[in-house]
């Protein structure tokens, strides 16, 4: 683990990504302490341009709400949704993929057809339908994102397990009389983890984008401010007040970019051979 971290720090892209993400996490955790006021509260008159009043450095929106406060509280929602929905997707995808890959045959066929069923439906459309049916709330959003994003995890894990299953050390475990669960958890999954970690970091980014898109369409949690909601709300007045949409947009861009950089850095760190050949 230490080695991976050191390799990450040597990679400039991964380093930048980590720094941005760290800042975002700090904002999400400590920001609300510095800005105790609700982001929904009117702070000033509407349409204050940025960098004019020290109390609202990034200006106000059409209802006079502080854009900076919105971004700070929005960071919580975005990061939380990204993380939780990815974890949920992993808890579904990893076991399903592992079982399909390990047992093969009929189990594999059944599980993979089930996975394909989800993959054939356009993921964003499915997410919209799910959120609309379940009523928009932070829980339904997390659930919807998890449901549309687990199939790639299952497929990836299945592929890894398929190749690891024939390794001699796995056969050695079979021969010494280990149970299937033990073999999957102790012998196979730890060795299949690197690509899953890389995929997970990219999934967090996708989840943030999905949440933003849902909120943009007005399907966000009505009680929680989020970057996507802010972009959506400001879009009608984008010609008069660019800052209402641009600042949360930049926030989305930076956090997604950071996660992608981290994903790439992790990929290089976990597959040192690929990284060396690339250089």
């Amino acid at each position, binding site marked *: 683990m230490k080695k991976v971290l050191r390799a990450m720090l040597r990679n400039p892209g991964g380093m930048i990504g980590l720094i941005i993400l760290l800042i975002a996490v700090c904002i999400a955790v400590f920001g609300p302490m510095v800005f105790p006021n609700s982001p929904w509260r009117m702070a000033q008159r509407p349409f204050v341009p940025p960098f004019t009043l020290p109390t609202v450095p990034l200006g106000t929106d059409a209802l006079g709400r502080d854009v900076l406060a919105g971004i700070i509280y929005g960071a919580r929602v975005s990061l939380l949704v990204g993380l939780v929905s990815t974890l949920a997707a992993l808890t579904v995808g990893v076991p399903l993929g592992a079982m399909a890959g390990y047992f093969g045959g009929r189990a594999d066929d059944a599980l993979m057809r089930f996975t394909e069923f989800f993959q054939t439906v356009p993921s964003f459309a499915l997410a919209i339908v799910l959120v609309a049916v379940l009523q928009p709330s932070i829980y339904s959003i997390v659930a919807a994102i998890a449901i549309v994003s687990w199939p790639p995890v299952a497929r990836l894990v299945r592929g890894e397990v398929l190749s690891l299953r024939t*390794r*001699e*050390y796995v*056969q*050695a*475990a*079979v*021969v*010494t*009389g*280990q*149970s299937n669960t*033990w073999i999957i958890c*102790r*012998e196979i999954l*730890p*060795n299949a983890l690197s690509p899953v970690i890389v995929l997970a970091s990219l999934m967090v980014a996708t989840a943030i984008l999905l949440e933003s898109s849902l909120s943009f369409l007005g399907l966000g949690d009505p009680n929680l401010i989020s970057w996507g909601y802010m972009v959506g709300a400001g879009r009608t007045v984008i010609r008069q007040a660019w800052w209402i949409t641009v600042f949360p947009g930049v926030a989305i861009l930076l956090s997604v970019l950071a996660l992608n950089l981290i994903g790439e850095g992790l990929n290089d760190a976990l597959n040192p051979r690929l990284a060396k050949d690339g250089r």
Partner: protein
Amino acid sequence: MTSSPAVTIKDLKIALPDGGDRPYAVDGVSFDLTPGEIICVVGESGSGKSMCAHALMGLLPDRVKTEAGTILFEGHDLLGIDESAWHDVRGRRIAMVFQEPMTALNPLMRIGDQIAEVFEAHGLLTPKQRKQKAVDLAREIGLPDPERIVRAYPHQLSGGQRQRAMIAMALALEPTVLVADEPTTALDVTTQAQILKLIRDLQRNRNMAVLFITHDFGVVADIADRIVVLRHGKVVEQGTAQDVLARPQHSYTRALLAAVPSMQPPQRSSLTERDRAVDVIGLDKTYVTPQGWFRPDRKVQAAKEVSFAIHQGETLGLVGESGSGKSSVARLVMRLIEADRGTVRIGDVDLTQIEGKELRAQRRRIQMIFQDPFASLNPRRKIGNIISDGPIAHGVDRRAARRRAKELLEMVGLDPGAIERYPHEFSGGQRQRIGIARALALDPDIIVADEAVSALDVSVQAQVLKLLEDLKARLGLSMLFITHDLRVAAQICDRVAVMQKGEIVEMKPTTLLLANPEHPYTRELLAAVPGQRSPSQAA
């Protein structure tokens, strides 16, 4: 032998990148290549023999650097020339044959086109002449039906035919020097014998200088005019083949020669009157690969009515070439794959009839040692866990299992402190010992060793074989020993079964089989074993 040398390598020093196990991969190596001579560079893995070959081809990896020395070829120092000058030398003046013909050939290109490409790369001949040349070369190196085979893709050829095609490519521009890096290591013995003969004939007809890299003293004895023995990047001994093989001066060379298993089996008493440890009756296995719609499935019969018994304390060898089904039989016996028909009986238990928990409990009695010491240990688990996992699964107390793991490590000749370390900290031979300790941890009655020493250097191989022999005698084990190497089988097996295309064609006590082979295939195998003319055996 008085002609001037084609290549003179002098004081060659190749530095390894920092953090290697030694500062120089090749340290002060000097030797000459003379036209009409085959010089064998012999050494164990990591001796720097391949580095020598790659330096001569200008193919060293970026991270290693030649620090000193010269490679003199036709008046130029090859270490000083640039990439465009190399372009004229490589392939045209000095050509190379690689170890693994499957990966060295382009799988998407017809054989003939790949041979013709050599001319194209050097801007020679017209396309039509190139095609003709490809056919001529295919004929010269003995590919069957040259007109047709040049239109085949690499996967349609056998291993030996692929290696022939590689040799054709190397010879296309009539080089003066041929570098062959372990060209027969990936091949079966019978094919190996043919390729060695081919290289020998071509070298004589064309008066080439050949640099032949190998780890196998049997091959050396068959082909070498002169021998260079490398160890840790240094030349320990060089001289004519007769001198080095018959009167080795250096103790390392003597040790290497002594470690080569001989075809003379040691005296063994018959054990056939003892009780049977395992009974294998009529195993059948056919692999079926669907080929898609409207095409018949591809069927490969890996085991056909395979029956044998192993008596208590006996070692039965299962010998055959690649694809003969010997590994499949090992896995059928272990029940790692399911048989179509047949029975494996250990004592009063029929291993093919039980399932689930019952099967897992019975697996304790038959354990396996795997071929690849690098793939058979989970890289993320400590040695202690790897060895004690099995007993713990069978209900042994955790602490007792760890204590036993330490004892086992000592028994296989390793430091008991190794239980806290990870597999990557050990060498191939040590890992194989760990694999043996893992197999013994469950106190099995029978050990199945699948090519257990094939991936090891000869000296390590000899040690591991001796260890297996000792342990077997001490613990009263029975063993199914699978190998492609008849020499190894001769040393360790009480009886040998020869497999061909999924069938056991001959099964006899080792001494009898070697002295008096009946089946034509057994005879063919025996004749192809390299190094039978070696002086070390005549002595």
